């Protein structure tokens, strides 16, 4: 099949978990990568090696291991900066996950400062966000008296830009949106929206949790007016470990925002009357950071870069097109979101007439096929399409066409099991 990763079978051997079987001996068909991705051996090895040979706390330990651990941790930051094409490594803040990165932004904007959000201001998000890019902004607007407004979704599953002039006004202080929807798969216009929002002086934040695993990102190459002011993603969806996320934000924004969490490592001087703070990114990294996780994330992003993000993107698009075709051959199946692979990511949510997503996932699981069932932390988007929950398959760089076939066969079996066939 044209467009798949070259030597896909060799790439799959990098992921030890893909060789395991279910208790009854069926091969594992892992189609839940938008939930979390599997890890290549090099990531596992980098983390084990760090713990076996270089473990110490960072920055404050004045000894050999402390120096090595600091170098390894900061090396992780460098690799994140390189992966994103960040203009400066000091713009990369390492957090616990993408949710913490978004909460950091929403929380610090509540406090006095040039970017403070207050009564009468408007924050704009979209109906297709993950809950992690909704709830922090509900908290911010509720606490400050600001107003939360929403970009809707068209019937085709695209962002509805018809009200853009009403949503983007001089009252708009923040626009926050996902690059790629975790439910609909939609790829949003992340150049046009920043350009329009910057014209009214708003900050633009992009949730790249689903984009970073599958699209090339080059922040420095983006025209300044189209570049978001901040972008977040999580380590575990980019073949890295859990427990680490990334906030990239432009240097002067990080400088202008007040600290988020207080504690060790984020200070300059602590006196009993008041403290002064370290400069970014350390100002936002209170306490012992996720050190071995940063090592693992660095190895993960290098692994992706070695494969080439253009190749990963092409692979995802090829598999997604094949999956869309296969899924739509199943009677009674409706794909939620765009049905053309060209403008979408690798997560495909769908409904199957007469069978609840939970039951679909259960029957598929009995055949070794792992998918997700539920609202995928995107309940507003489900409500938009009048469904309570859906089943979602999500592929990644290691997914084969044969695994998509196994899914489609599993869905046919599901229909017959519930006597719909």
């Amino acid at each position: 099949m044209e467009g798949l990763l070259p030597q896909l079978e060799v790439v799959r051997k990098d992921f030890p978990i893909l060789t395991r079987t279910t208790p009854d001996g069926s091969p594992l068909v892992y189609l839940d990568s938008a939930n979390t991705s599997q890890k290549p051996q090099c990531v596992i090895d980098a983390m084990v090696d760090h713990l076996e040979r270089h473990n110490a706390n960072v920055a404050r330990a004045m000894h050999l291991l402390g120096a090595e651990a600091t170098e390894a941790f900061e090396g992780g930051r460098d690799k994140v900066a390189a992966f994103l094409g960040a203009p400066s490594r000091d713009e990369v803040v390492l957090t616990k996950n993408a949710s913490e990165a978004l909460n950091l932004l929403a929380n610090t904007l509540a406090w006095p400062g040039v970017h403070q959000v207050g009564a009468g201001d408007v924050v704009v998000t979209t109906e297709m966000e993950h809950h992690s890019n909704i709830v922090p902004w509900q908290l911010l607007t509720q606490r400050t008296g600001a107003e939360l407004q929403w970009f809707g979704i068209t019937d085709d599953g695209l962002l509805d830009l018809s009200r853009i002039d009403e949503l983007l006004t001089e009252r708009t202080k923040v626009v926050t949106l996902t690059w790629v929807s975790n439910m609909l798969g939609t790829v949003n216009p992340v150049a046009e929206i920043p350009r329009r929002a910057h014209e009214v002086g708003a900050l633009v934040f992009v949730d790249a949790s689903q984009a970073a695993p599958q699209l090339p990102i080059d922040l420095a190459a983006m025209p300044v007016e189209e570049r978001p002011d901040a972008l977040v993603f999580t380590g575990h969806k980019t073949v890295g470990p859990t427990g680490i996320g990334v906030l990239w934000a432009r240097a002067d924004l990080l400088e202008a925002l007040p600290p988020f969490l207080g504690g060790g490592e984020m200070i300059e001087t602590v006196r009993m009357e008041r403290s002064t703070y370290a400069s970014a990114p350390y100002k936002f990294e209170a306490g012992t950071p996720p050190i071995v996780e940063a090592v693992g994330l660095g190895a993960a992003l290098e692994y992706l870069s070695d494969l080439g993000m253009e190749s990963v993107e092409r692979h995802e698009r090829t598999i997604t097109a094949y999956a869309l075709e296969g899924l739509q051959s199943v009677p009674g199946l409706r794909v939620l979101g765009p049905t053309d692979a060209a403008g979408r990511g690798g997560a495909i949510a769908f409904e199957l007439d007469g069978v609840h997503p939970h039951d679909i996932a259960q029957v598929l699981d009995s055949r070794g096929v792992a998918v997700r069932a539920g609202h995928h932390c995107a309940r507003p988007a489900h409500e938009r399409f009048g469904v309570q929950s859906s089943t979602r398959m999500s592929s990644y760089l290691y997914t084969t066409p044969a695994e998509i076939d196994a899914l489609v066969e599993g869905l046919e079996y599901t229909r017959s099991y519930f006597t719909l066939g």
Partner: protein
Amino acid sequence: MSSELDSLYQEIILDHYKNPHHQGLRDPFEAEVHHVNPTCGDEITLRVHLVDGAEGPVVQDVSYDSVGCSISQASTSVMTDLVIGKPLDEALSVHEEFLTLMQGKGKVEPDEDVLEDGIAFAGVAKFPARIKCALLAWMAWKDATTQTLEARDG
């Protein structure tokens, strides 16, 4: 593969799923609750109507409106069969029995005299992800019943 699946999806469960009993929201009622399963989004609105009997309260009606998977829908239907018309004390002990079955990791032998169609859920206990589905309505009923009793005593 199929036998494992069949132990979960018993005929009785699929029958209740396709033809649920006591469905719909009815008057009168003393308490109405709304419960959700946050992991999958299954939802139920459930009402309880108690009346006084010779030896304490009796479950006169349990009515509901719900969306969810086959396990949660069938469990709701079976529960209404089991508790409606029973003295509250007896209904609560059926609740206890069902809870014990669900938390028994598949090792508890269900008592058909007490649980009737509810014994079909014995297989669910072996699927940790589905236990919450089977318990959604039971938890809602317990909550609504407690609220009713509190309002009476208060």
